[in-house]
């Protein structure tokens, strides 16, 4: 039994460990390892195309995370008051947004956006005639952010709602009883209570968006995100540079995920303990 477990773990994490190891390769080829140097790191981070892709990814992930967190939190607060069949429908839609494969979201978003753009762009051109197509809508940051926000928002809804459900409702009543208006109650009681969930929702959204290749590949248009860059560069052959990128992304993602988990677990002890 233990041997099987060890084999499974080796199969799972062995390649990842190898990538990390190979990123410190001193040699020129990805397949042979010569210990040890960080030369590929400096080389990688001086690659302007790569840096541009990285910045694009950070911009998209950051915006996605902010939008998904704000809208997702608002949605979960509102959903609290929705009961019955309507609630069931909303719940189902939320889960579907997460379950749907990325490739479907990618294609669907692409088709939808292109269709909408085809209708809107002639209209815009008519309303604000200008030389060139400066005003035209096209694929780019906006479309990736929209597609990413769609499914990461569902993630935030589920995380924040779990926290709201675990919250002591009488705290809100206590606050109202102590003269706090509904907005003051949200600011001083509800938000501090759900903050860890909101934060971890933010971090998870960021990670999902940052790591996503499939959806971005469909809707990014001319923009290159980091995963798209990696995909493109692999086609030219795997170099130690690829390992460096993978290791960096791994480090960033793991840090964010662990932080999110930590935040989710740090629950303030409940009021009203018996002494």
């Amino acid at each position: 039994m233990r041997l099987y477990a060890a084999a499974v773990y080796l199969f799972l994490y062995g390649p990842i460990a190898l990538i990390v190891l190979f990123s410190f390769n001193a040699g020129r080829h990805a397949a042979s390892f010569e210990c040890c140097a960080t030369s590929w790191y400096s080389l990688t981070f001086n690659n302007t195309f790569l840096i541009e892709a990285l910045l694009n990814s950070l911009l998209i992930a950051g915006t996605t995370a902010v939008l998904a967190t704000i809208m997702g939190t608002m949605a979960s607060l509102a959903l609290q008051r929705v009961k019955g069949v309507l609630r069931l429908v909303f719940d189902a839609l939320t889960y579907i947004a997460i379950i749907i494969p990325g490739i479907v979201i990618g294609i669907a978003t692409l088709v939808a956006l292109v269709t909408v753009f085809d209708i809107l762009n002639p209209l815009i051109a008519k309303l604000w005639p200008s030389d060139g197509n400066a005003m035209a809508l096209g694929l780019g940051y906006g479309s990736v952010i929209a597609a990413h926000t769609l499914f990461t928002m569902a993630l935030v809804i589920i995380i924040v709602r779990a926290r709201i459900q675990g919250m002591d409702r009488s705290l809100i009543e206590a606050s109202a009883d102590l003269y706090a208006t509904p907005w003051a109650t949200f600011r001083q009681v509800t938000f501090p209570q759900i903050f860890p969930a909101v934060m971890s929702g933010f971090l998870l959204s960021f990670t999902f968006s940052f790591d996503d290749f499939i959806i971005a590949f469909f809707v990014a248009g001319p923009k290159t995100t980091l995963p798209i860059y990696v995909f493109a560069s692999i086609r030219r052959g795997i170099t130690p540079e690829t390992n460096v990128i993978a290791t960096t992304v791994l480090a960033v993602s793991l840090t964010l995920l662990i932080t999110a988990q930590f935040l989710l677990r740090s629950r303030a002890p409940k009021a009203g303990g018996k002494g």
Partner: protein
Amino acid sequence: MVEMINGAVDVEFQGVTKRFGDIRAVDNIDLEVSSGAFVSLLGPSGCGKTTSLRLIAGFEQPSAGDVRIGGASVVGVPPYKRPINMVFQNYSLFPHFTVADNIGFGLRQLKPRLSKSEITARVGEMLELVRLQGFEERRTWELSGGQQQRVALARALINRPTVLLLDEPLAALDRKLRQDMQIELQTLQRDVGITFVLVTHDQEEALSMSDTIYLMNEGRIIQMGGARDLYDEPINRYVADFVGKTNFFDGEVAEIKPNGAAIRLANGRVLYGRNPRGGVPLNRNAGGAIAVRPELIHIVKANGSACLTTDVQTTARVKNRIFLGEQTEYLVMAEGFGDILVLASKHAETVSGGFSPGDVVSIGWEDSSALALENTSKGDHSTAVPVPK
């Protein structure tokens, strides 16, 4: 803020009904809480006492009738606009605030804003009042139950509300602490002069603390009065049963007397009881019951040197004995009466030497100690009757 005008009414219910779906949690209730009073809403769970409290606080709005605070109707007024504060059953302290920030919460919501120094000063006063100096920076979940309770009290009282509502505030405390807090609450209420409305299912708590008790059942008020009224003059069987312990002897009304009735038991014996003050006189040939409190029954050794001279006398056999410290509770079996509960004081025990199970004893009581009550009452809670629509 509170003016102690004699006769001023702080809270008033006029025909208040609260429906949840088909259930009438509160059913056409009238009540009046006068300024500076300590009022209890007493009853079993589901009797509507908590709903009544929530109607005062503003967490619920009445389905019918009028809720008035300080003479003005507050129907439709949200909780945060009512001059009322509440001590919640589980205290509901804010876990992300310190003790001082919890207590100052209400003051921080006021417009125009109070200065920081004033808030700090008043929080300090409150901490002193509830004897929690030095706990300012503590987290609420670090405190014991009794301390949390005092923080909850301070958090409500600091706002000098017209009325303080207390929802089973002592339920989570152990017995000793509960008794201490009962005294503390009473003293506090006298000191601050704020009207207290307490909700409790614990009759002892209600009897010991409040000036006026509303005994509720199934959304209605069954009897209103002081502790002595409820204990000595229960208007029906439900009240007699709920407040304290009582022996009931069921039978038929044999004779109507000016201030009471005679009831014939199944064994043919006729017992006399007086009408409780405010009770409904019984009808002849209807069912009735004689109610006698266990502590009003004398118990002596049968054929011993001490003789009973009471109006009612019978012999009985001791079935069980429970030592309660200041008193001893006997369960005795008397032919034709059934099981009878008798409470013997420490003094009586010293004189008689006490009894053991199997002993034959004489028991008896004065007619004036017995009440004649309806056999059954609408307030009967022994069977769970669905609330009539």
